[in-house]
C-alpha cells in the first residue's frame, strides 16, 4: 500500500524547498547583517479571473527584469506567492513592481506588492513564509477546551480501574500510520501502524465529570489500566497474527504486566521483530530502574524500544547519544522554526546522528516535513500525511 501525497510531491516539493531556503536566507541575513531588498508578490490575493493563463503570461513578462540570473533570486512559495530578493538598492525590484502595478491596478500596490528590507524586517518575512506553509492556519485552530473538574477520589479510581478490566475498548482505539517520506519521493511509504486507546474518551466514559489532568499519578494509573485492556485483546492469537508492523505507545507499567508479556510470547520471534514499543520520556524519568528493565527485556526478546513524547526542550536533558535507543519520537512544535541560532544549534546537536531513528510526530503542517528534511529526518506521523488518503 502506498499513498500519493499531493502537496509534497513534484511541484509541491519545490515550493516547500523554496520556502525553507527563503527562511534560512532571512536568518542568515540577520546573523551576518547583510542587507537585502525583498519584493513579495502576493499573487495568491488575485481573484480567479485574474489568474487565467493570459494573466499568468503577462505577470511572467513583467517579472523578466528579475528573472535574469545574478540580478535577484526568485522564490516560489506554496500557495502561489513569489518572493524576489536582491542586494540594495534593488532597482530591478522597483522596475518589476511598477510594471506589475500597472498590470494589476485592482489591488493597491502596498497590499499586493509589499517591499521588505532585510535584516530589519526578517521577522515579517519569516511570518509570511510560515503563513504560506500553512502554519498559521493550524496555530489559530481553537484549542480544545480543557475539561474542568475535580480529580477522582481513590475509591472512584479503583471503581473505574475495575470496570476497565472487562470494558470493550474497540470503539476507543485509534490507528495512525508512521510514514517514510524522503525529499523527492513521489509517494510516502507506510512503516508502522500506531495503535493506542484514546484516553480522553475512555476517561469521559468511565469517570464522567472528573478530571484526570488534575492528578497526574491517577492519570498514569488510568492510562496503564486502559492499555492493559487493549493488550489483553491484542494478545489473542488471531489478533496478534494480524498485528503486523505495529507501534505501541505504552506506559512503563503496562509493558511489564501479564497482558503485554502474553502478547510478547504469542507474537513469536517474527512478530516481535516487527513491533516497536514506545515509552514516554516522562516514564523514564519517573522510574529509571523500570525503564532499564524494559530496555533489557526489549533486547532479549527482539522488539524495538523507542522513546516517545520527546519535546524539543527535553532533548538536551535526555541526550539520545546517552540513551542510544533504536527509535526516538520527537514532537514537532512551531517554535522549532522560530528558534534563534543557538537554540537551533542545540536542537540539531541533540538529534541522534543516525536520523533514521527519528520519527517526527505531530507533523500536521507541510512545514514540519520541510523542517525534518532539512535535518535528514524522513519518518513522520501526522495529519499532513493522513489527510491525503
Amino acid at each position, binding site marked *: 500500500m502506498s499513498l500519493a501525497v499531493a502537496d509534497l510531491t513534484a511541484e509541491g516539493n519545490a515550493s516547500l524547498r523554496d520556502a525553507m531556503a527563503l527562511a534560512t536566507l532571512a536568518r542568515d541575513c540577520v546573523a551576518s547583517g547583510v542587507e537585502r531588498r525583498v519584493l513579495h508578490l502576493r499573487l495568491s490575493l488575485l481573484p480567479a479571473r485574474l489568474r487565467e493563463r493570459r494573466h499568468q503570461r503577462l505577470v511572467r513578462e513583467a517579472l523578466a527584469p528579475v528573472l535574469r540570473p545574478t540580478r535577484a533570486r526568485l522564490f516560489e512559495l506554496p500557495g502561489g506567492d513569489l518572493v524576489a530578493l536582491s542586494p540594495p538598492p534593488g532597482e530591478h525590484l522597483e522596475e518589476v513592481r511598477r510594471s506589475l502595478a500597472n498590470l494589476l491596478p485592482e489591488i493597491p500596490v502596498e497590499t499586493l506588492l509589499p517591499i521588505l528590507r532585510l535584516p530589519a524586517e526578517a521577522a515579517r518575512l519569516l511570518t509570511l513564509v510560515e503563513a504560506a506553509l500553512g502554519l498559521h492556519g493550524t496555530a489559530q485552530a481553537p484549542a480544545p477546551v480543557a475539561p474542568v473538574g475535580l480529580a477522582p*477520589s*481513590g*475509591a472512584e*479510581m*479503583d471503581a473505574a*480501574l475495575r470496570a476497565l478490566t472487562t470494558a470493550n475498548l474497540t470503539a476507543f482505539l485509534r490507528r495512525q500510520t508512521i510514514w517514510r517520506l524522503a525529499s523527492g519521493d513521489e509517494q510516502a511509504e507506510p512503516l508502522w501502524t500506531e495503535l493506542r486507546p484514546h484516553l480522553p474518551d475512555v476517561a469521559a466514559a468511565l469517570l464522567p465529570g472528573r478530571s484526570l489532568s488534575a492528578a*497526574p*499519578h*491517577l492519570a*498514569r*494509573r488510568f492510562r*496503564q489500566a486502559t492499555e492493559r485492556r487493549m493488550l489483553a485483546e491484542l494478545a489473542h492469537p488471531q489478533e496478534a497474527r494480524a498485528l503486523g508492523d505495529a507501534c505501541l505507545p505504552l506506559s*512503563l*507499567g503496562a509493558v*511489564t*504486566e*501479564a497482558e503485554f*508479556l*502474553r502478547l*510478547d*510470547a504469542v507474537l513469536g520471534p517474527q512478530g516481535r521483530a516487527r513491533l516497536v514499543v514506545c515509552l514516554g*520520556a*516522562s516514564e*523514564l*524519568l*519517573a*522510574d*529509571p*530502574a*523500570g*525503564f*532499564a*528493565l524494559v530496555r*533489557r*527485556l526489549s533486547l*532479549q526478546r527482539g522488539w524495538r524500544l523507542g522513546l516517545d513524547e520527546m*519535546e524539543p*526542550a*527535553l532533548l*538536551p*536533558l*535526555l*541526550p539520545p547519544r*546517552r*540513551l542510544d535507543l533504536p527509535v526516538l519520537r520527537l514532537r514537532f512544535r512551531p517554535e522549532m522554526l522560530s528558534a534563534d541560532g543557538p537554540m537551533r544549534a542545540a536542537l540539531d546537536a541533540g538529534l541522534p546522528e543516525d536520523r533514521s531513528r527519528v520519527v517526527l510526530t505531530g507533523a500536521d503542517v507541510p512545514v514540519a516535513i520541510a523542517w525534518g528534511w532539512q535535518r535528514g529526518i524522513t519518518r513522520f506521523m501526522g495529519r499532513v500525511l493522513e489527510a491525503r488518503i
Partner: protein
Amino acid sequence: MGSLFTGRHQQIPASDWPAALLAMPEGGVAVFSPAQGSFAGRRIARALLEEAAVLGGGHVVEFPGGDLLLGATTGPGNRARQAIAELTGQTAESWPLPANRSAVKARCEQAQAASAALLPTLAGLEAHCATLPVEDLACLTFFADGTGTRPVAQRLGPASLGLADAESEAVAREWLCRRLLAALADPVQRRRLPALRPGLRLILDLPLGGLPRGAPLAGGAPDDPNRPIALLPLASLADPGGFAAMEAGLRAAGWAVGLVATDACALDWVEAPGLVWAVPATAEPPAHRPPRLIALGQPTPGWCRAPGILHEGTSP
C-alpha cells in the same frame, strides 16, 4: 500496615504442587524463582518460566508469597533461569531431577507457608498516607562530606513504604511530601516531626510541584555554601518549562536545587547541569558522575568517600 494491602494479586492455587512435582520430567530440572525484587521483575520471571513450560513440557506453580516453581526439561528450564538473571538480576534456583526431588519438596513446603505479597489499592494507599501519624511521615538521615565521617547535612524526606512497585511508591512519596510540607508549616505538627539538628545543612524532599507559594521555609543567602537543598523528584523534569520556573523560584528564595532519582542509572541518561543529584549509591561508581552528588543508603561504597559527595552516615 495490614489494612493497606486489600487488593490481591491474581494467583494460581499452589496447593497442587505435590502433583506438579510428581509430573516433572525425569532428567529435567526444577526451577524455583523466589519472590524478590520489583513486581515488574517478578511478572517478567513468570512469563519466562511459562514460556519454558510450553517448550519444556511442564507448568508453572505460583505460591502464596509469589514464589514460582517450574518443572521442565533441562534446556528450556536453564535458559529461562539465565534469562531471569540477566533481566532482573535475581537468581532463580535450579535443581536437577530426579536427584533433588526431596530438596525441591522441602523448598515447596517452605514456600507454601509464606504469606501473600500484595499490592495496595489506590484508595488503600491514599487512606494509609492520609492517616499515617505525623511522627511516621518523615525520615531524618544524616550525611558526611567527602572523606569525613562527621555529619554535615541532614535530609528530611518522606518515609519509604517499601512497596515493591515503583509507581505506588512514587504516588505515596507525593502524598507524604505534601503532608510533610504542611506539617513543617504548622507549629504544633512540626514538633512531632523528627527534630532537625541545628548547624547541619538541610536537605528537604519536595513534591512534584515544588515549594508552595508562601511556604514559611527560609532559604539561605545565594552564596551561602550551606544554604538548604531542595530535592525534587526526577519526574518533575518531564515538564522542562515548569521545572525551570520552579528552579528559578527556589534559587531566588535561597535554596540549592537537586533531583532525587530512585535508581542511579538515571545519572547515565539525564543531563542536568548545575543541579545536585541524590541517588541510591551503587557498588561501582557511575559512568557519568555529577559534580555534586548525594549518595543515599548504607553501607557507603568506597567511591562515595570523595570530594563533592555527601554520603549517608549515622546520626550525630
